[in-house]
């Protein structure tokens, strides 16, 4: 395995250590090493840099020490950063190339418009031997600013192959079991999960969670380490179950472990999405129903649904061809408060006084994110809302108050 990475600037031993840390990336690492030399660098995560100032500070601190960063003014601009960098550089000139490594570089697109082009030309701007490395999960084409920027060198890291995954995961072997056993366990695991998941981190997580179960027959003394087929028969159904629950985080890893200890109570533990029921006060339910109707019915059909003696509305006129069935596909439409209340008073079965608490219920539905306020909160006059719940949810709610919502929906007429 050795011998891929060679560089005059590094001791072989050191390179080998790196190689162990990043298995299966020898080729790419080798290329990077051959391109670069000894590395004074600044590693920056773009998620963390909520402001450009933080980014500048990180870079200056890691190259020139804390004192350098303290010269930065409050809310520094790019040019101030460049000026400060040039000043520092003249005091401590670079012996080797300096590197800035930016993780999650795609977030730079949301930063100030001049930041990304400036980073690409940083060498020119600060007049120093400096290189910027952008790490990202999306292609460069989606980055490219409109005008005047240098094209970076692109280096593609391909996905790990199944064999490589196997090799990497096997390195985590449990201290009290043999490496071969763990390797065969990983083999079984990949057999189940490789088709749905290739995320190394996730696979490692799953491997850790299910290993105890895998070893159960061994600790009980029923099976020997070499009888892989028996072990496979034991673990396979278990892994399939894990795929439906832990993998999609229906239950947390802690709960999964407890579940294994208490020995399968037939799915007694319900996942997060099993709890969708929301208890609401009586009038809130009707407000929600009214909001749903207002969001999914065209306003002109209100007369047909809610006025008792609406007279004759011609069927051809009422049912417009393309409008029908499309409301649910198009999603909720905004409606005004007046319309919501009008529908509310006609669907609720008793006489309700327009009390303050009816209005406060509307705003609490907004805080619960069951309704969304479209207009700005400052606008007191005729606020507009949208209903942001699903048909299933509203059907469940209307069932509890004996309201047949489907009868009132234009799409289902």
């Amino acid at each position, binding site marked *: 395995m050795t011998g891929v990475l060679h560089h005059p600037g590094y001791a072989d031993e050191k390179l080998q250590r790196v190689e162990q840390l990043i298995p299966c990336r020898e080729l790419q690492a080798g290329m990077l090493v051959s391109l670069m030399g000894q590395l004074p660098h600044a590693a920056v*995560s773009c*998620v*963390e840099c*909520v*402001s450009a*100032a*933080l980014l500048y*500070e990180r870079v200056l601190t890691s190259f020139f020490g804390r004192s350098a960063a303290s010269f930065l003014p*409050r*809310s520094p601009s790019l040019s101030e950063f460049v000026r400060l960098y040039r000043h520092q550089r003249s005091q401590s000139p670079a012996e080797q190339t300096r590197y800035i490594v930016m993780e999650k570089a795609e977030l730079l697109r949301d930063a100030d418009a001049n930041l990304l082009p400036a980073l690409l030309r940083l060498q020119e701007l600060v007049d120093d031997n400096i290189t910027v490395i952008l790490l990202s999960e999306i292609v460069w084409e989606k980055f490219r600013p409109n005008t005047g920027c240098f094209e970076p060198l692109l280096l593609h890291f391909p996905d790990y192959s199944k064999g490589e995954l196997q090799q990497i995961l096997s390195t*985590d072997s*449990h*201290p*009290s079991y043999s490496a071969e056993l763990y390797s065969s366990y990983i083999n079984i695991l990949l057999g189940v999960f490789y088709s749905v998941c290739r995320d190394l*981190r*996730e696979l*490692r*997580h799953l*491997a*850790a*969670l299910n*290993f*105890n179960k895998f070893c159960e027959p061994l600790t009980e003394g029923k099976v020997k380490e070499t009888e892989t087929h028996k072990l496979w028969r034991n673990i396979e159904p278990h892994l399939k179950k894990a795929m439906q629950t832990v993998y*999609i*985080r229906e239950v*947390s*890893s*802690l*709960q999964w*472990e407890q579940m294994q200890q208490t020995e399968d109570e037939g799915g007694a533990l319900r996942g*997060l*999405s099993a*709890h*969708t*029921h*929301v*208890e*609401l*006060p*009586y*009038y*809130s339910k009707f407000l929600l129903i009214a909001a749903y109707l207002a969001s999914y019915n065209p306003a002109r059909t209100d007369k047909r649904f809610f006025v008792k003696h609406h007279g004759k509305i011609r069927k051809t006129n009422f049912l417009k061809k393309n409008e029908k069935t499309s409301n649910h596909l198009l999603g909720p439409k905004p409606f005004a408060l007046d319309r919501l209340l009008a529908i509310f008073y006609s669907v609720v079965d008793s006489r309700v*006084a*327009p*009390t*303050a*608490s*009816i209005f*406060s*219920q509307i705003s*609490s539905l907004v*805080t*619960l*994110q*069951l309704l969304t306020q479209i207009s700005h909160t400052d606008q007191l006059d005729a606020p507009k809302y949208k209903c942001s719940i699903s048909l299933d949810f509203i059907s469940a709610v209307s069932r509890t108050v004996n309201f047949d919502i489907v009868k009132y929906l234009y799409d289902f007429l």
Partner: protein
Amino acid sequence: TCVHSFFQGCFVFKPSSKKRKTRSLGETCVNPKSKNITWIYVLLEVLQEELNKKILDSLLDFAKKCSTTRQHCDWASKMRANEIPTAALVLGVNVPDHDMTFQSLFDLLKHSVTPHVVSVQAKECGVLKHLLKRVLEGLMDVAVDDDDEEEMEQNPRSVHCSLSTLSDWYTAKTKVTATPGKKRNVQDEDEHHHHHQTPPVVIIFKDLEGFNPRVLQDFISICSRYIDRLPLMFIFGIATSPSTVQHMLPHSVSSLLCIELFQSLSCTQHLATVIDKLILTAQFPFKLNGKVMQVLISIFLYHDFSVRNFIKGLQLALLEHFHSQPLSILCCKKKEALLNVTLLSGRDLETVRQLPSFIRFVEKQEAGEQVKLMTDDDHLKEACQKLIKDLRKYHKSYYPVLRCLHTLTSLLPRYPLGKQIRELHLICLEKNVWENEDYQSAMKLLKMLAKDELITSLRKCSEILSSAKSKKMKKAFTELDELLAKFKHLDGKLEKINDIPSLTLCYKKIERLSPCRCHLPPPESQTLYEVCYYSSSATVRRHLNATPRTSIQTALSSPCFYLQNESLKNEDGTVSNSAPDICIAYKLHLECGRLINLYDWLEAYATVVSAAEGQDPDCDTFGKVDDVKHARFIRSVSELEFLGFIKSTRQKTDHVARLTWGGC
């Protein structure tokens, strides 16, 4: 805090009530009230704690467990170490109630798990920077440098707003506390100390739904980068359902968390506990009548699901009762009540004589006794003492019997007398329960109940009765026990012809129930019930369930209702000419159609105002518009526009559109 303010309010008004009564009773009359109020206050605090105890305890356990498993060095926990332990705490939709829960959670965590706790609210954290700032400020107790606030002077203590600052601070903090532990160098305590050296950092998100999903996602992914240095732990406060977490966080982020679910009791269960402890007990002398109870419960069920508001309503009723009913001085513990009866003044006794329930009582007495009661004060006082004792006895038997009846009827199909005990209580408060149709059908169903079910519920009844203290209840308890014994006896003897004995026994059972009925008449039938029962449901409704629209309309159409100025009153109830300008403008606009011509309106207004000024109708200037009238008119029109009754329209420039319907 709301509870506090309520009681402050009560003590603020205390002196005035003292003044009002000192002429009749002196100091003693105030004491029972404040005692009563302090007592309910203490009770409520205990109750609040009890309600949340279970869920808070399990959360604390979770926090402790998380901080200890982090110390473990076995293979499995090492592999899982990069997950952030997270508690999803589902608290129900009554968001205002949550504050108290979070406050006690915060205090408990600080007290027993870790000094590093911070709680954040969505409205303070619109963007990631603000969230970070809040977290840092809450934990480190320093000013955090926030680039865009220019007015904030350069604070030498201020730090950069990033999680690495927090991580450095944490490392420094734990190192400092670690040194004394090392000095002691005691081996037994080693692990104990180790645990304390790295207390978890707990971040409580009070209202998860309110957070911007983007902000939350970024924050979590930043946190997970520091998890090896900074033992973080999250608590999500969720109002709707746990699936919200999945809606807000994509898989890549939720896989960074290890979420455990904590579901609090539903709010209806909370309400049931509150009713059980505060209302269905003979301990506490203050009572609500059926209508007030109904108002409070319907506000809860129909409007807010808020236990806190229910308790507030109860407190309001309590204060109103002591404020408005002079005889409420008798509404206290037995000894004090009897003492207070002897201190009643002549005026108070006159009030007693006018109580409807007392009049009914007097009518039932013999002629001689009637005269004595109406004239002899001392005799009346004696009678009152006896009546107060009777009222207490009534309460002592009412509640146990109510509970028994509920245990028997709550297992009947379709719950003829209600599923919850509060429903049965409301029925009993309303009228004689045994005259109720549902009661008859419940009794019929009870006769058809399977024997073993009947026996188990009867056992429960006997348990309830065994804890009751009054003599009557004790007697009933022994009788019930005998009955149960008979059941057992028959059970052994007549196994073969199973149907007949169980039927006959049921009949016996029903006979047993009938004496129970005499304990459940509505409180209105009791003499002097006015002393303990608060009955003004309209007041409670007006205070707790305000109707802003109706209030505005009342103010505009009959200003005397609020202004209490006799000159504004007209005999026929219409608005007088001398009413405030806006009322006149409002009245005139009611006579118009959808569009109102402003000039016509102004003319009509000028006529009314001129009449009010007492101008001679035949005079030339009568009804003429001058500058002052014009200005007053414009002002009232714009006020009406502000209140939302009219708005300008583009259809006709000199017209305004009416926004309300219905006239005069």
